[in-house]
């Protein structure tokens, strides 16, 4: 099992750091899946995460100048590593002006991702900062736990409002309640509601637009026959939503959510080179 990669371009490095920062805000530990062409950051829906799960996918070619990997075996040419994204975020934080960043999988005392940052210095030789981030290698028999989640059979799919606005609304609501209700309909209306003994607050968004989903095998046909005004709603943990919104450092190209009434809310945030999916289960 080997892995080496190198980033030389500063813009790519900054973009990659931002993605890692976003993920670090969402989960304490996550799984990094490496394939020849892609990197995946996966958080599975175990109880420890409050049932929320995440799937983030990026093409290595968009970030790395060099990328070589050898998986556990020829027919399973992938590597699954468990790591703390905060560590990776911290390692990259001070690499803002780096000449190059190399990432390598090593095994000195224990398996580590070694991030070596080459920084410019006043003298002829560069400064080299090395961070050894401990990782856990996930054996092949457990890979099934980390499959790509399928898009749920949703009732309503709607584009999200401007994330900054949504974030400040949710942040204020967080002070009042632990749960928030998201409801939306196929006419582009979305409401964010909280309700406590003392107060209930609702924020209305209109004209958001509903993304068209190609109906395959007629599985989405139920959505087409749905009343345009009727709301699909789900009550979710407000902290999870706030974490998702707070972690977004750049405005995504597309941001939408799929709501399955009283079951789950599925957020999809698409950037040019990376896609992030976040599932928050509904609470009764």
């Amino acid at each position, binding site marked *: 099992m080997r892995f080496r990669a190198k980033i030389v371009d500063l813009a790519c490095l900054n973009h990659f750091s931002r993605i890692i920062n976003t993920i670090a805000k969402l989960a304490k530990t996550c799984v990094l899946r490496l394939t020849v062409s892609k990197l995946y950051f996966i958080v599975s829906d175990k109880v420890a995460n409050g049932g929320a799960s995440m799937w983030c996918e990026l093409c290595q070619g968009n970030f790395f100048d060099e990328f070589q990997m050898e998986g556990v075996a020829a027919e399973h040419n992938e590597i699954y590593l468990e790591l*703390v994204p905060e*560590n990776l975020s*911290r*390692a990259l934080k*001070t690499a803002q002006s780096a000449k190059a960043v190399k990432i390598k999988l090593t095994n*000195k*005392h*224990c398996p*580590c991702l070694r991030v070596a940052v080459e920084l410019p*210095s*006043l*003298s*002829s*030789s560069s*400064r*080299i*900062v*090395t*961070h*050894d*981030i*401990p990782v*856990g290698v996930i054996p092949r028999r457990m890979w099934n736990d980390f499959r790509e989640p399928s898009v749920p059979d949703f009732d309503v799919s709607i584009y999200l409002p401007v994330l900054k606005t949504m974030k400040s609304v949710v942040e204020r609501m967080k002070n009042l309640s632990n749960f928030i209700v998201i409801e939306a309909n196929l006419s582009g209306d979305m409401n964010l509601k909280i309700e406590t003994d003392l107060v209930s607050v609702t924020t209305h968004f209109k004209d958001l637009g509903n993304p068209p989903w190609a109906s395959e095998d007629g599985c989405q046909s139920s959505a087409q026959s749905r009343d345009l005004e009727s709301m699909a709603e789900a009550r979710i943990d407000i902290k999870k939503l706030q974490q998702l919104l707070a972690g977004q450092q750049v405005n995504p190209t597309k941001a939408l959510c799929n709501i399955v009434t009283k079951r789950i809310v599925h957020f999809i945030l698409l950037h040019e080179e990376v896609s992030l999916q976040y599932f928050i289960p509904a609470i009764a």
Partner: protein
Amino acid sequence: LTVFGRAIHAIARISDEFWFDPIEKGLALRSVNSSRSAYAYVFFSSMFFQHYCWTAVSEPHQKEKQLSLPCKLIIKSVLPVFRCVNVLERNVEKCSISTNPNDHHITFQLLCRHGVVKTYNLTFQDCDPLQAVFAKHMCPNILKVHSRLLADVMIHFPTSQEEITLSVTPMKVCFKSYTEEDTDFSRTMLTEIQLSPEEFDYFQVGVDSEVTFCLKELRGLLAFSEATSVPVSIHFDRCGKPIAFSIEDLLLEASFILATLCEAEKEAASPEPACCPQPWDSNADTAPSKYPQWNGNTPSKDLANPTSALAKQEVKSIPRLTERDVPGRAGAAMAEAAGGEATEAPYQKIRYHVASYLYKYCVFQFHSLFFGAVSYKEKEAIGDTFQSLATASDTEEDFGALQSSQV
């Protein structure tokens, strides 16, 4: 003023209290942390201040002339005075410090813009100050570098990082996170920075060494030296011997002396992380603690170490400091042979010399010192105000514990 404020902050990182020690040549501030493993010394020469007035009045019949009135202050009370150093620079026009030994008060007075005057009256305790004995010129390894470089290096380590290891060979310099044999590598992230000798203003490595010291205590000095933009000198030796970070220029000097971990005695180390302040127990001669023992030269003090005989002997051979003739050097006046002490305690002792002043026999009047955020050009104008303020502070009634008066 920024510089003074930063000095206070830096010292605050070492301990909760510090010694405020005005002498003829200037003002010395000292602090020792509770486990005696870190010592900070900042000396502002009288030229640093716009106006520095210090008087010593001693009774004629005393043989030893008491030269100063050392006193001990609680940092927490002083820190608010200099809390927002950046804001201070903008708002405060002048700061005056005066002491009144009779009723044990020090007054800090900030004259701010728009006629606002903030006065802080703080009580102090009389006590003997400590002075660390450390022979800087005997250190085989000396590095000198601008504080910016050190700050850039430290930024890569998490703020929670307690200890780091500095490893030098003539070819390279390396700062890395400290690890022991029983470090759980699967949980800890390790960071290492390699620098080439060319990056240092002065680079001398006499002996390859790896020293481990507490980073937290150092960060204060780094912030302070950035304010002064004076380069930092690092003097050290093999592991176990203390490491000194110092800055020096015409107006001020500062030294932070930190104990370093000695590899060979790790098994004797206590399980707590090295930089947790440990309760000082002068009678702990069973389990050698990790931190240097304080060798006071008052015979009544127990030297915790079983080789105390040797230690006592060495201590007695130090001529007692009654005159601080070398105020700048933090104890470099004494060159100490290491002795066989390293075998007992993992940390090589920072040897302290207690200058026991017979202060109670002398009466001091330390008038006041002024320094302001503005340039020195205004010295003439200040001369007039000085007089009136001096009398004012002397005749003012006691305000009580801590009071700021606002117009």
